[in-house]
């Protein structure tokens, strides 16, 4: 991915220089190798700190909602999964396509710093990505890990390397490839449990929620100007896990609000400070939508309607839920 970084640094410089774009949305380096943060670059010189590595997981498409409100055009780097979110934002007219210039960038799978820590990398000073391995240089010695073991959960079920929308591509043919897993396996497992078991599973997970709202704020399709949870009159506690009901309710409603719009980018789970598998809620909706109303992938195209904004007269009856068998 270092090659891609050099490519996009150069190309961004050219596009800024010739006036095609006025600013660049990318990632800037931080204190460590693993903490680049999204940033807007306005000068060619500032591009020296543009980075793209295995920790550039933060998706950029949502930043375009604000960035395209400004004068001029913005260059944005989108990984394949980010192009789905971008398409969906176009569909909902949240982003003005005319004001964007999309460079689709190749991705060799994003890494999870928490997984590296759990695997035993303590006191990480720097990291080297070497093909199928990740080497962590730590205060307590060097450690090598298989890249696959350190991949973010969302990358394990990668939707593929194809960019759904772009103006130009910056890809490399030597990007690391990995075997993906079926994203619905865990959902199916949960469906196979009894209601009591399922309830305790979710209680165990959701009881860790600290109501930081990171899942909502990082979500590319949670783009309401004012969220229902931020309305003090809505009778919900936006910032307190005041009761187990509030935890359940927030997560059901959050997932429901993005049902049919969620492209399964996995940002919600990635950003959760308590590592709650929120994607399992979204994937349940996706799985049901696929089963009830036909295969649908949000963000595959920028046109058309989403499953919950249309209907068919012959749709399945809601009783399908209890006819489906199981406990």
């Amino acid at each position, binding site marked *: 991915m270092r090659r891609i970084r050099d490519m996009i640094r150069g190309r961004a410089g050219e596009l800024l220089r010739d006036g095609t774009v006025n600013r660049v949305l990318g990632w800037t380096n931080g204190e460590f190798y693993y903490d680049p943060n999204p940033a807007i670059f306005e000068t060619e010189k500032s591009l020296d700190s543009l980075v793209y590595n295995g920790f550039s997981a933060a998706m950029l498409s949502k930043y375009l909602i604000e960035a395209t409100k400004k004068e001029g055009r913005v260059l944005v780097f989108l990984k394949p999964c980010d192009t789905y979110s971008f398409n969906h934002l176009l569909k909902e007219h949240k982003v003005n396509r005319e004001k964007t210039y999309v460079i689709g960038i190749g991705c060799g799978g994003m890494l999870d710093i928490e997984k590296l820590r759990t695997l035993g990398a303590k006191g990480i000073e720097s990291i080297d990505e070497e093909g199928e391995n990740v080497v962590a240089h730590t205060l307590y010695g060097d450690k090598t890990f298989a890249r696959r073991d350190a991949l973010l959960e969302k990358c394990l079920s990668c939707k593929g390397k194809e960019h759904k929308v772009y103006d130009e591509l910056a890809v490399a043919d030597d990007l690391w490839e990995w075997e993906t897993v079926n994203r619905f396996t865990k959902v199916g497992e949960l469906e196979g449990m009894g209601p009591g078991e399922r309830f305790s599973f979710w209680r165990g997970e959701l009881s860790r929620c600290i109501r*930081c709202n990171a899942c909502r704020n990082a979500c590319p399709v949670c783009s309401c100007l004012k969220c229902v949870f*931020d309305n003090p009159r809505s009778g919900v506690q936006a910032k307190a896990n005041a009761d187990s009901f509030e935890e359940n309710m927030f997560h059901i409603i959050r997932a429901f609000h993005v049902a049919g719009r969620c492209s399964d980018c996995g940002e919600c789970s990635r950003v959760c400070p308590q590592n709650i598998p929120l994607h399992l809620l979204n994937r349940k909706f996706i799985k049901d939508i696929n089963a009830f109303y036909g295969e649908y992938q949000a963000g595959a195209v920028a046109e058309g309607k989403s499953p919950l904004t249309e209907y068919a007269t012959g749709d399945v009856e809601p009783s399908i839920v209890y006819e489906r068998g199981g406990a």
Partner: protein
Amino acid sequence: MMLKLSKDKIGELFQKIASDRTLYLPVDNNGQVNFGRWTPDAAVRLDQLKTVKSSKDFFFPQTENIVAFKRQGKDISIIEKRDANEPFVVFGVRGCDVRSLDILDRVFLCDPVDSFYKARRENGTIVSFACSEPEENCFCGVFGIDAADPLGDATIRVIGGDLYWDAKTDKGRALEESAGALFTQATALDSDAIKEHDERSREISGRLPLKDLDLDSFEESALLEKFNSPLWKELSQACVGCGTCTYVCPTCQCYDIQDFDTGHGIQRFRCWDSCMYSDFTLMAHGNNRKSQVERFRQRFMHKLIYYPANNDGIFSCVGCGRCVAKCPISMNIAKVIRALGGVSVSV
């Protein structure tokens, strides 16, 4: 006087402590380690350097009921809701979290005293835990905290197969007495091991990447200069406005008071609030910090300028590194100090 206990007897120590008071310590819940109540089958994780949330919860919980109102006919009765004041122990608190209580004390124990907080402080005994292997995102040393020998009512060190106990206050000594039979006296040989442990820990702290964060320029006289810095815009543009940094922070102390209509009465409770939220300090006329730049700036100005200005120059950050580890987009106080503190960002 330093006491000693074999590490495999630690379960007995927990049992002893928990026999007449509640014991909280780092517990694993599906891979995430947080302070939780000790039970004989709790998955205790003393090997974890940092819990996701801090020990702040036990003194200033995320939500707590204050008062309830109930109406019967034309009468409104006011029912005080206050947790029973019972002694408890928080075990395994790192040096950074111990210091954070000092920072919270200065807010909640000054006039008017917060009686909810005060009761918990009086009932709580803190057993701190010396850090043997600090991590790269730790920077407590910047705030003068000695992670190798933290404060607290009593301090433990785990060295090899032994646990060393060092009571520092009356509360700590009282706890020591109740578990006295389990301990043996530490010998001169042990003192050497402890000395070596502390020195090694300090040596590692001395070469942590964030150890040189420069706070010199953050002083009251620089308030306007920092406030008006053009860098805030740049630093805040990645911020998604969630409350992660605030809620994992051991020193954030803002709260909101809300009423909940239970259908047959009103439950008034307070809950943590975050200056990152759009409805923070919302008033009848609206919100005085309308943009994320202003909200973002508020958080760091408070920690680095406003708080020290009112509290003898003590910063409202303890360098625990939780926000560094948990921010969804990796923006944090270390980056802010680097950018505004006059030292260029190291690559």
